[in-house]
């Protein structure tokens, strides 16, 4: 469980002469184990900052954050997070196979042992890249690279996945494919996912709850619970309830933008 209570984040340090820039203010949020939560909001509202604070990559300025009762930094040391950033962040000199194992190879004293070649092949098969195990990233399309990034995160078997707009650089068709691939992988593991996105449709398709951040500094404008059955498949966007959720989120985004 991830618990944020009255969380604030301010960039800059008045003591060193930098102007203090408050980014997040009084964020209260509890994410249950196995829940898929998306964070949506306009640029600069603190979505990625929030993700990085949860992942122990950034310190917060006030309030509290705990991950299964532990500080985020402690959870990070025990490899409890799988991070999927905006770019695939693959190592160009390593094969797809070695990239999938990268996070298991690093800090190998913590977490599980690297996957065997058979396990890597099975995972690559699930993301549709069985034929690409020995290729280097330069030989892959943008969508294929992002599939490798997903496989790398799922290979960790981390209880919490942090995803920062992982599909934002993909074309619309590939992006739609990736949503359902992510759902398929997630259904098998049911790890906790915190997913940052700009896309309302993406947030509704993927999530159990959508957190709308807005204002400056960013505050929670709305927490929308998505009551759409799982597993979700293509065509769910045509559901009346889908459109209602999207409309509610859109309205909250507009009111958040007005508060900036």
């Amino acid at each position, binding site marked *: 469980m991830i618990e944020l209570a009255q969380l604030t984040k301010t960039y800059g340090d008045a003591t060193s002469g930098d102007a203090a820039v408050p980014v997040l203010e009084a964020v209260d949020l509890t994410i249950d184990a196995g829940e898929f939560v998306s964070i949506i909001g306009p640029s600069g509202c603190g979505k990625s900052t929030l993700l990085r604070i949860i992942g122990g990559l950034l310190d917060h300025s006030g309030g509290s954050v705990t991950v299964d009762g532990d500080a985020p930094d402690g959870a990070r040391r025990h490899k409890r997070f799988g991070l999927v*950033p905006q770019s695939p962040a693959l*190592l160009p000199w390593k094969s797809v196979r070695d990239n999938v194992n990268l996070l298991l190879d690093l800090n190998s004293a913590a*977490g599980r042992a690297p996957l065997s070649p058979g396990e890597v092949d099975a995972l690559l098969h699930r993301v549709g890249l069985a034929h690409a195990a020995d290729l280097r990233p330069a030989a892959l399309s943008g969508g294929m690279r992002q599939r490798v990034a997903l496989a790398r995160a799922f290979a960790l078997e981390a209880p919490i996945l942090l995803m920062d707009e992982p599909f934002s650089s993909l074309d619309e068709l590939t992006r739609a494919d990736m949503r359902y691939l992510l759902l398929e992988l997630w259904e098998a593991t049911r790890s906790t996912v915190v997913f940052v996105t700009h896309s309302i449709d993406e947030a509704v398709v993927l999530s159990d709850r959508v957190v709308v951040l807005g204002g400056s500094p960013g505050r929670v404008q709305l927490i929308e619970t998505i009551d759409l059955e799982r597993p979700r498949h293509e065509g769910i966007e045509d559901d009346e309830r889908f459109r209602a959720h999207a409309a509610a989120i859109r309205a909250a985004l507009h009111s958040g933008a007005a508060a900036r």
Partner: protein
Amino acid sequence: MSGASRLRGFLTSVAGLALLFGGWELYVRLADVRRLILPTPSSVFAHLGAEWSFYVPHAVTTLTEAAAGFVAALVIAVVWATAMVHSSAVEKASWPVVVLVQSTPVAALAPVLLIWFGFGPLNKIIIAALFAFVPLVSNALTGLRSLDRDTLEVARSVDASTAEIFWRLRVPQALPALFAAARICVGLALVGAVVGELYGGASGGLGYLARTGQTRGFVDQLWGSIFVLAGIGSVLTLAVVGLERRLLVWHASQD
């Protein structure tokens, strides 16, 4: 690259050299240039063929000085750039020194180094290292910094150690920039060794041979030394390029 296109590339390079030496030969013969001013390349090659054993120990001397200078510059540059990557204070303190090294005519230091280190090889090695140092440190810093933020965060998200991030991520990422500098700096180190021999008091080496050839009017020796130096420089550069091709098959520069 296919075998046929490789062969085509090789033949084009050979044609370029043939054009240079052929044009040179033709010009000297047709314009009847005095041998003291410019000998024909064929006469220099003939001299080298007959007297090659005379040049070998001198070539070894210069090559040793250049190689030692290059390796010293490479090691210092990588260590220094590593310190700069990890400490902004070190970086801020370092740049004025690097700029000073870059702006100082290294040849002018040769007499000073001669006073400090005597007639041995050390002053030539230092000059060779100074010639090669700035491009190496500059590219090492650029290369070590070229790891993108997302990759760094992915590594930090599993608490990868600083040593792991350095050796497994930063160093491989820096290799293309380092090789780009090395391709230029092997030649610069050779130039440095020769400058050291010209101005730093020497009793051997190809720079010494060129200088004595010039002062004594030994045209064959002067040009023979220049040709051997050019040959060594080319072989060293090709060796770096070959190593680069082998190690950086993944990089766009090798497409």
